[in-house]
Structure formats: structure tokens, C-alpha cells
């Protein structure tokens, strides 16, 4: 798998199809693992999706005393293994992005696994498949690099730069999440 989860935050239209779709993934127990938030609804309808960054050296796995969070050979950071998770919630505090969720009834954490049953076959995760706005994409590394270069160029051409006065209109424009 040489694929990237590519997020273009400003494209998000807040439809939450990605969250509905997350529940549909076979291994997800009908619970979504991604987030969609308003930047500030009072000011604008801008929303943005947030999901696991699939870190290279993931804090969640590092702080887990039970070694419950496994990393696949492709570099996907899986949800905690049910048998191993002791429900200490270290991972939820350790993650710098606030991604792992906690199921208080079952006393265990759950998180995005990039729909591993799909992505291991190079099939796009559910969120990236359905996102009608292409705010979440599952693309090749090279495509990501060219998109990033183009975006910088566009911003220079159009002179779009947030200022202190209107920065709420802007959100970071992209974020590539990738594994090896």
C-alpha cells in the first residue's frame, strides 16, 4: 500500500457522509471513528474533517501499557486489540490530535484503522470513498506531492493569505496522512 489519506479541509461541506460511512466499515461495530467540526459556526459554515494521522511513531501506541495498539506492516495504526486493551485511556490523552475514542460501556478504546479490511487491498476507506466533496481522498503519494505543489502555486497567484482579522475563514488546507 503506497496510498495517502489526503485531507483538504477547506473543501469540507459538513455533510458528515464520512462519519455515516465510517459506521459502515465491516470492522467498525457501527461506531464512527472520525470527526467533523465547525471551525466556528457563529462566524461561518466552514467545517473540517479530522481523523487518525496514522503517525509513524504513534503516541497512542507508545503510551499504551498493555501494548494493545498494533501497527501493521503497511504502517496502519490499528484500533486497540479487544483482548489486550485494559481501558486505562492513556492513548486518548497521549494522542496529540485527540483521535482515539473511548467506549465507557465496554471499557475500551476504539479508533480509525483506515478501514484496514479495505485499504489492505488498496480499496479506499469508506470515508474517502463517499466524501462528496473530495475533502478526504485516498491517493498515491506522488499525486499528493503534485497537489501540494499546485496548491502553493495557486495561493501565490491568488494572493490568499489569512490575516488576524479573517483567519476564521481559513483552515489548514490539506494534510497528508500516509504510511510506508
Amino acid at each position, binding site marked *: 500500500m503506497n496510498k495517502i489519506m489526503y485531507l483538504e479541509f477547506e473543501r469540507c461541506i459538513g*455533510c458528515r457522509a464520512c462519519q455515516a460511512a465510517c459506521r459502515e466499515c465491516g470492522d467498525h461495530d457501527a461506531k464512527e471513528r472520525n470527526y467533523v467540526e465547525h471551525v466556528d*459556526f457563529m462566524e*461561518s459554515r466552514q467545517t473540517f474533517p479530522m481523523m487518525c494521522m496514522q503517525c509513524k511513531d504513534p503516541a497512542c501506541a507508545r503510551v499504551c501499557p498493555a501494548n494493545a495498539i498494533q501497527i501493521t506492516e503497511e504502517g496502519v495504526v490499528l484500533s486497540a486489540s479487544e483482548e489486550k486493551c485494559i481501558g486505562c485511556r492513556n492513548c486518548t490523552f497521549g494522542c496529540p490530535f485527540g483521535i482515539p475514542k473511548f467506549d465507557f460501556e465496554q471499557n475500551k478504546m476504539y479508533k480509525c484503522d483506515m478501514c484496514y479490511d479495505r485499504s489492505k487491498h488498496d*480499496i479506499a476507506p469508506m470515508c474517502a470513498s*463517499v466524501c462528496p466533496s473530495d475533502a478526504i481522498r485516498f491517493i498515491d503519494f506522488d499525486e499528493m506531492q503534485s497537489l501540494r505543489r499546485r496548491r502553493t502555486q495557486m495561493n501565490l497567484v491568488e494572493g490568499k493569505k489569512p490575516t488576524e482579522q479573517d483567519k476564521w475563514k481559513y483552515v489548514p488546507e490539506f494534510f497528508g496522512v500516509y504510511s510506508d
Partner: protein
Amino acid sequence: MTEFIAKPGVKNLKHEGEKLITTHCSYCGMQCGMHIRVSEKTGKIKGVEPRYDWPVTLGKLCPKGVTAYQQIDHPDRIKRPLIKKKGRFVESSWEEALSLIEKKFTELQDKHGKDSLSVFGGVSMTNEKCYLVGKYARVALGTRFLDYNGRFCMSSAAGGFMKTFGMDRGSTLPWTELEHSDCFLIAGSNTAECHPTSIQMFWKARDKGAKMIVVDPRETPTARIADVHLDLLPGTDSALANGLLHLLIKEDFVDKEYVENRCNNFEELKASVEPFTPEYTSQLTGVDKNKIIKAARIYGSSPRSVVMFARGVEQQSKGVDNVTLYTSLALLRGQIGKFASGVATFTGQGNGQGGREHGQKSDLLPGYRKITDPEAVKYISGVWGIDPEEMPKAGVSAFEMFDEIHKGTIRAMHVVCSNPAVSAPDAEYVWEAFKKLDFLVVNDFFLSETAEFADVVLPTTTWAEDEGTTTNLEGRVIRIRKSIEPLHESKTDWQIFKEIAARLGKGKHFDYSSPREIFEEFRLATKGGKADYSGITYERIDKEDGVFWPCPSEDHPGTPTVFKETFATPNGKANLPAVSWQEPDETPSEEFPIRLTTGRVVFHYLSGNQTRRIDFLMEQCPVPFAEMHPELASRYNMQDGEKIRVTTPRSTMELEVRLTKATRNDIIFVPYHWGKELAVNKLTNAALDPTSRMPEFKVCAARIEKLEQKAGH
């Protein structure tokens, strides 16, 4: 028949022990492609799989589409026919329910004449069924009172296109071309929430530098990224469009050769837009005049542009005028009938396009034929095997049927695939009408607010339990596949028509054993009409990724782009309008100082009878709200989240305040997907457009009040 279609090289996840059935979403006019996951062993529905290779939507779905399958095996499904006895529904057999219908219908018609019965149709179902609704009303029941919920949805677009082009196809171009356009002028469409999967096309075009002009009182997600956002007052579209036309002419953006060769009435139009200077337009619409000028210049100088609109401009008492004016922008620029340019309406209901063409409308017969045309009556009577004399005359529009009930002309109604108790304006008047009926039959798979008024409720199948075709918002005819056998004791609408017809002695006209047989007859019925489907077959749809009508023969390729050479008017030229300014039916007064506008949210579909039962969607948006600008709220000392009272001349309701600066500071917006005390349609105005008979959902005058604080709260 192949159930699963995928192009070579496309990967889908196939779970073990499951099969995939290729179909489309049940909801809006985008008709997004999807596969439904079905267990091979138990035949149960398992979920959804994206259809990456459907060329229009490429696997994308909105949250309604993702969860659509959850309607099918839903605990709320009506399992057996329901008969109301002593005010309560009692489950019964089909035999009992149908016998009761036969008895009541016959009695009423004997006593009060044929037209004492009526049929209220809908277009969230296949062409086969929509076609049969008209035949059922006219042949089986023999009544002239037939109309459908497209009057609350598409009829102004239809009326405007008929007037201008002489033919009503919702989009003049295939949407796969949109990514090549240079400019979109989108009016009265909250595209990101109502047709979310079309957004990908706008983004692609924008990545190549396309411009976007969005006309909407609210700063919707699309308005937010527009190059110009024309934030007009609700109900002032005709002024704005006239103002833009004025500037196109004044600043010399008119394609003179095109207008000369392909349009009628240019001089009249020119004279009528003359007064609409940017200053005057700005004064009427409340939009800054510089923005109007900027928009006209961007639109006027774009080589390829598409004008698009939706309910925002159509659901007004001037809906048809608005449509003709916006359409004229494209005509003056010479855009119609060419690559990646043209005009389109965002069709609301799944089969809003196909369903309105084939005789569910009070004055239409299949193939978009006029019931007032004796030749059309003769032809269709031939197809149906009846004497032309027997063909009922034109009836009245959907909302006017409720007037007929109040007058006592209509005594019974059969509602199919619709929930007017939520979707009709001035709802309390409509509820009174339902109570007044001697007999009400409703076909549905969930007990809708309308069904609650019924004497008999017949359980129908969902879209996934029957075969058929729909026509998406491009005019592309596509296939809906059966994923599972009908659940419980439900029957398809066409089977229900067939059985009632048989009991009324008209069985020989409804002798179908499958949707395909209906489709074959339907093809014949459309032959030679404006919406000609006669060359379309189920096999061609599969092979060709759908077929665009008109398609008059099996060797005809279909018509992705219409009006390439001529328009469908008598002299082949498009008719430009001349429309003067007129206020909405109801304008703010001292007593009702604010404009109320209504609309949709992404999580619900139409009257919400389906989506209000889906957990994910209800978690996101369980109740309606009153959205307003903090500046307006501040005038009334209202806080975010507070309950307030909203009142119009018709009724009153309580709603929670939701504040955002992403809207005008002089309007309130309420979404309409709920019934009973949560129905904003209690408040809306039923003023009808003179041509399309579309009610003015989009603007009325309202008053807002703080609720008294109760002690201890």
C-alpha cells in the same frame, strides 16, 4: 440478468458470503450509484458499497445515501394492511383492505360521480410506477382529479422551461461536462446540503480556474467559497435576474448572432430590463450594487457558463418568471446546446424528472403530452385500450385538490408515495381537508403523518424491493434493481393498482406481471411525445451507463445535450420573457416584520418520513430550528439555543434559536422536514404561481417573540 455491474479494473470489497446488487440511491435527483450488500444465504440486507465507476457520482454518497439501505429492513415498516376501526389502526388481510376500498370507491362514485375520487401521486418512485399512477387514476378510477407532489418541487422549473424552450428537460447538458465549465451561476440552491455529490464537479472546475456566483440569502457552504455571493432578500429573484440581464445588454456581453438566430422577443426583453439599473436592482434585492456588477461581468465574460437553480427561485408565486429570467441569462450569452454550458435545475426528488413527464400531472399524458390535445388523447387511449371519450378532462393542481375537498367535490383520496401533511404549505388547512374526506387510502412503507389520517394504509415496498427505471436530474434514464423480495406482506404500488383496478372491473387494462412489462407499454406510450423513451431498453441502460431522452428508436444514441440546433417551440426559437417587478405575495408589515424562508438540511429528505427513522441522521439533526443572524436576535434579546415563538398570519410554533453570521440579518430560516407541531409548513403561504401552481414556500412574513420565562426555568 446481471445484478452486479462493474467496469474492468474497478475494485470493490466483497465480503464473504455476500453479493452486491448494483443500483442507485432512493432519495434525491442525483440518483447516486451504489451497490447494496446482500447476504447470499439469508437474503438479508447487509449494507452499502460505493459504486466507484458510476460516471456521474463516482462512488460518492451523502449521509442519506450511505444510510439509505437502513430503511429496508427497518422495525417501523408497516407489515400488513391497516384499517382504521373506531379511530385506531387494526392490522388486517389484503382481502379485507381491498374489499373495503372497492366498496367505498364504488359507493362514492355511484353517489357523487366519478370525480368524487382523487389520486395524489409522487415522484420518489420508478417511471414504471409514476406512469401507472396516471393510468390508474384515469382508467381504473376514471377521475379527473389527479396530481402529484412535483407541484411542491419541480413544477416551476417545468413551467419555465416549457415556456422558454417548449420542452422541459431539467438539464440541457450532461453533468459529466460540468468540470469543463468556466463559470457557474447558482441561484436558490443550497447545493452542498441538497445535492452534495454534485460538489465534486464544481470543485474540479474550480481547480481549473472556474468562477462561481451564488445567489442565496444565506451564506451556504457553496456561497462561502463563491467568487461573488449575491445575498438577496428572499422573494426578489426576478429583480436580481432582470438586473443581471440589464447589465449583460448594457455592457455588451450579448451573443448577438445566437440571439438573432435562436431567440424570439429580444426587443421586448430589452425594454423590460431597461429600468433594472444596478441601483434600482440593489434597492429591490438588498444586494450591494458592486456585487451585482461584478457578478454580471464574471458571468458575461466567461466563455462557457452554466446557470443552475433550484427550489429557492422556483418555490415562489413568481417561480416560473424567475426560471424564465435566469434561463435567459444563458440564452443571451448563447450558451444553450453547447459543450459544458447551458442551464439546469437541481431536481429534488429521485425521479422528479421522469415522474413529471408521464401523466401524473393534472393536465399531462405520458410522453409529456397535453391532455387538452385531442390527438394526444386519441393516441394514449389507443395504447391504454379505452375509448377517447372515456378519457377524463384535466383536473386541478395538487394544492387546489385540498380546496376541492373543502368544497366537497372530492370525497376520497388515494395518496401514493407522498406525505402532503408535511410537505404542503398552510398545513393546518391541509390537515382539515384530510379530516373532511369520507375515505382516505395511503400507500406507504412507514406510517407517515398523512397515513395517520387514513382509513386504510396499504404497505408498499421500498425502492430496493422492486425493479424499474428512474430519470436522474440530467435526463439520464437509469436502472433501479431489486435487492430483495418484498418484506412482510408488502406489495409494490403497481401490484396494488392492478388489484384495485381488477376489483373495479378494469383488470384487463392492468394485466402486468413485472415492471418490465409496464416499461414496454410505457415506451410505446411515450413514442412520438416530447419526452420520448421508446428507444430505451433495460439492456441499453446497463450497457451505456444510462440513456438520455429523447431517444426515439433503439438505434438512436439518446440526447445528452439538448437544443443543439433548435428549440422545441413552434418556430424553433427560444422565447425570451419580459417580466416586470412584483413583490412576493406577502411582504413584511408592522405586525409581521420579518421574512421567513424555509429549506432543507443535508440529513433529511423531503417530509422526513424516511430519514427521521434513521439513527445516524436523527442524531445529527433531530428537530427543526430557527436560524438567524446575531444582530437580529440581539434586537429581540434572544440567545443562542433559546426557545422562541414564530408566528405568521396562518399559525404559530415554537423553535430553538440557532445563531450564525452566515446569513442575512433580516430573515429567519427554518428547515421543513418535520410534521405536526414541528411543521414549519403550518406557517408557510399557499399563494400559487399562476402557471405552475407552485406554492410560495420560500417567503412569507413572520413575527418572532421571546417566550415568557417560567419561574424555576
